[in-house]
């Protein structure tokens, strides 16, 4: 278990007063008064006994309007030295909290998000503006008193209504009223707020709808000639309030929504959520082995799928069109296999809390095996095209270096962290499903430039195919009658169903994360009391934190490197915006 032990946490009590330490089946939370917070965090970060150097996540829990104080801040930290995590909680009295940016720069965006969604002020934050919404937006959407549907206050007739007048009946009688949408003036104000002091005459806008941005991201570059002096990113064009939806829907019903976060690797998104819920129910160890092997196999296939798409579009952005055609050929085969096994090519929704919804169809393992046998040869082909190509090397080597310090400071995870020499891989640190049983290496770079990030991901494809091989071998030994879904011993106490009706999760809290192709994807589920809906779900998105380093790594680089950097960071907007 990768959580700090109670004894070690108890030692903190000698230095700080009024600490409450709570153990919740393995997950340790320390509650502290607001005044001590910064000192406590500083001790945790710098004391050689603790060394919680890495910032994982920060979020807010809204304890409803009746509770006073109403908001609670939750900090999740990781210690690379001792390989353990800790959760710190504190109450935001008067809806204010001290800023963390003095300790970890990476908290900047997390705090902006908390301000955007909950209206919490942070004392000392350098530029506390909204994260996803535009500047004039009057509400705080994740507060409990904000309705799920929002406030409908703008009239926006649909095209059908324009054409047919009042002829629309029944299901088509949509309300003409719509929730608030930003006007052009709002966007202008937002843009100015994000970059209050510009040094040059021109601020270059890149996006939100540019093919090189892989989605709807809006970049602002303050340029000196061709060199970037300052950079900020406006995201949120794809913000759908997934966390709000999660609070208003059953547990299995939320899985299709996770598909739509990181749509490139939807299986891995399902995986993270499913594991968090299983750990909250305390049944993760009791899931049938066959289901676990199938999940490991599918997750790795999905990782290969995601990396192939990354490689194709990355090379395409840097001008190597052929690569795109080659990787999409391989990708099509994976999609074909996914369609056969799960019924969908893209938004898969195959995993369930308790296993998977159906067994593998006849011939699935043969299809995967024949694909995975071919794959290493294909990866060699790709490498022959790119790795030693002098144009490729000069566009990637020593470009936008991310140091080890940055990794801890910004909470970078996934291939980005590994390329900078930090072997942070949750499949090894906090193994879930069958990753304890498979043998694979963590690829690690040493410099942290774009070239390293490229090499690390290429190696990850190879390692993933190694894992898939082992999964197939293991799965062959199972019987066709072995269960693929968890059977509760006492259905009255613990009901768990494939369709999710009548499923209740116990009271408690959990933070569980998996290694997504884009970094650590964590789900923090907080349940005040047992129920069919979670009280608060926080999604710690790897892509969101990885994207934050963009604003630092691009400084002093020419504008052409923006493409390289963005491609090697590989964010997916569905996940950054949620």
């Amino acid at each position, binding site marked *: 278990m990768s959580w700090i032990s109670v004894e070690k946490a108890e030692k903190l009590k000698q230095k700080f007063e009024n600490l409450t330490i709570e153990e919740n089946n393995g997950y340790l939370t320390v509650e502290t008064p607001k005044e001590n917070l910064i000192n406590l965090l500083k001790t945790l970060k710098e004391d050689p006994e603790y060394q919680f150097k890495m910032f994982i996540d920060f979020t807010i829990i809204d304890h409803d309007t009746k509770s006073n104080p109403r908001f609670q801040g939750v900090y999740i930290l990781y210690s690379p030295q001792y390989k353990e995590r800790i959760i710190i909680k504190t109450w935001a009295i008067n809806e204010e909290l001290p800023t963390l940016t003095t300790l970890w720069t990476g908290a900047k965006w997390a705090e902006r998000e908390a301000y955007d969604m909950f209206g919490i002020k942070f004392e000392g934050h350098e530029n506390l503006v909204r994260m996803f919404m535009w500047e004039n937006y009057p509400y705080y959407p994740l507060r409990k008193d904000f309705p799920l549907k929002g406030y409908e206050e703008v009239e926006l007739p649909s095209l059908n209504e324009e054409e047919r007048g009042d002829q629309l009946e029944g299901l088509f009688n949509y309300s003409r009223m719509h929730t608030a949408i930003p006007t052009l003036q709002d966007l202008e104000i937002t843009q100015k707020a994000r970059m209050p002091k510009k040094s040059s005459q021109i601020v270059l806008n890149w996006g939100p709808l540019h093919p090189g941005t892989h989605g709807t991201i809006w970049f602002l570059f303050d340029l000196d000639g061709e060199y970037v002096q300052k950079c900020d990113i406006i995201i949120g064009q794809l913000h759908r309030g997934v966390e709000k939806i999660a609070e208003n829907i059953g547990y299995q019903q939320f899985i299709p929504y996770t598909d739509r976060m990181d749509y490139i690797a939807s299986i891995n998104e399902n995986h993270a959520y499913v594991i968090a819920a299983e750990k909250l129910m305390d049944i993760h160890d009791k899931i049938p082995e066959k289901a676990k092997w199938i999940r490991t196999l599918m997750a790795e296939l999905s990782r290969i799928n995601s990396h192939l798409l990354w490689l194709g579009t990355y090379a395409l952005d840097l001008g190597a069109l052929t690569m795109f055609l080659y990787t999409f050929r391989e990708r099509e085969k994976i999609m074909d296999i996914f369609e056969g096994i799960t019924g969908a090519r893209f938004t898969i929704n195959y995993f369930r809390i308790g296993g998977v919804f159906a067994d593998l169809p006849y011939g699935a393992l043969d299809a995967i095996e024949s694909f995975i046998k071919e794959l290493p040869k294909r990866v060699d082909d790709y490498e022959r095209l790119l790795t030693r190509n002098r144009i490729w090397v000069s566009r990637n080597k020593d470009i936008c270096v991310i140091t080890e310090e940055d990794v801890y400071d910004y909470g970078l995870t996934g291939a980005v962290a590994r390329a900078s020499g930090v072997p942070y891989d949750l499949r090894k640190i906090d193994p879930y499903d069958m990753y304890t049983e498979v043998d694979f290496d963590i690829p690690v770079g040493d410099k942290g430039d774009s070239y390293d990030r490229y090499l690390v991901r290429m190696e990850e494809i190879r390692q993933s195919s190694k894992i898939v091989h082992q999964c197939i071998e293991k799965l062959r030994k*199972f019987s066709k009658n072995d269960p693929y879904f968890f059977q509760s011993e006492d259905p009255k106490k613990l009901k768990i169903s494939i369709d999710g009706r009548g499923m209740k999760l116990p009271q408690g809290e959990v933070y569980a994360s998996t290694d997504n192709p884009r970094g650590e994807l964590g789900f923090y589920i907080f349940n005040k009391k047992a129920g069919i809906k979670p009280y608060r779900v926080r999604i710690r998105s790897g892509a969101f934190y990885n994207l934050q380093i963009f604003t630092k790594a691009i400084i002093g680089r020419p504008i052409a490197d923006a493409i390289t950097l963005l491609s090697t960071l590989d964010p997916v907007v569905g996940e950054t915006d949620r």
Partner: protein
Amino acid sequence: MGIKKVGTKSQTIIEKIFFLDFMKGLSTTIKHLFKRTITVTFPYEILEPTIRFRGVHGLRNVDGTEADDFMSWIKKLKIKPPEKGETRCIACKFCQAACPVPELFTIKAEKLNVPEDHPHHGLKILAVFDMDLSKCMFCGLCTQACPTDCIIHTDIYDLSSYTRRNWVLNKEMLSQIADDFIARRGKEKFDEKSKWREDQTVWPLHEEDLKIRAKLWDGNIPQLGPNYYDQSDKTTN
């Protein structure tokens, strides 16, 4: 913990002078030049979706392949016992309860208007079953919740239309879609008790379809065999 350092040596002078890096890259592209095309030329060639494909929904009718507990569900919900060709839907709304977007369903049952001495007095019948597919995520949870295996996914994927009105399917249309699908591929997907067949294949094994799919798999489509040690071999392959 296995850690593998990545990295390459920098280019040698010979490599630089003779452009060996470009030569190697070109050899790969030239090799691919002589490979067969993998593009499936839709719509001239149409690849049949796999049997588990989650396409447009359908409502199955009674056709003698109901599960054993079908009649007990009918009794429990006081539905008029359906005859052959009538819908299996018992208006239990389980699909709506399992749906991530519940408002896409409009399900209503109404009491039969018959005199008191009629055997169907006091029983209900499905009156409205509308699905607004513009809101649907095609996640498949409704089909897993259905106790009578009534609502199913078919393999229809082209559902574009000029108005949003056409995305709302009523119960007659849904029944028609299901009937059509069952006639085409019902035997491939469901067994005699309307459950998923155990020997569903990862892709259809018809001659014609395999020929198209082989293109996509670079000309050598894998031979399918059993997954598990005690699974029987499918002779049709």
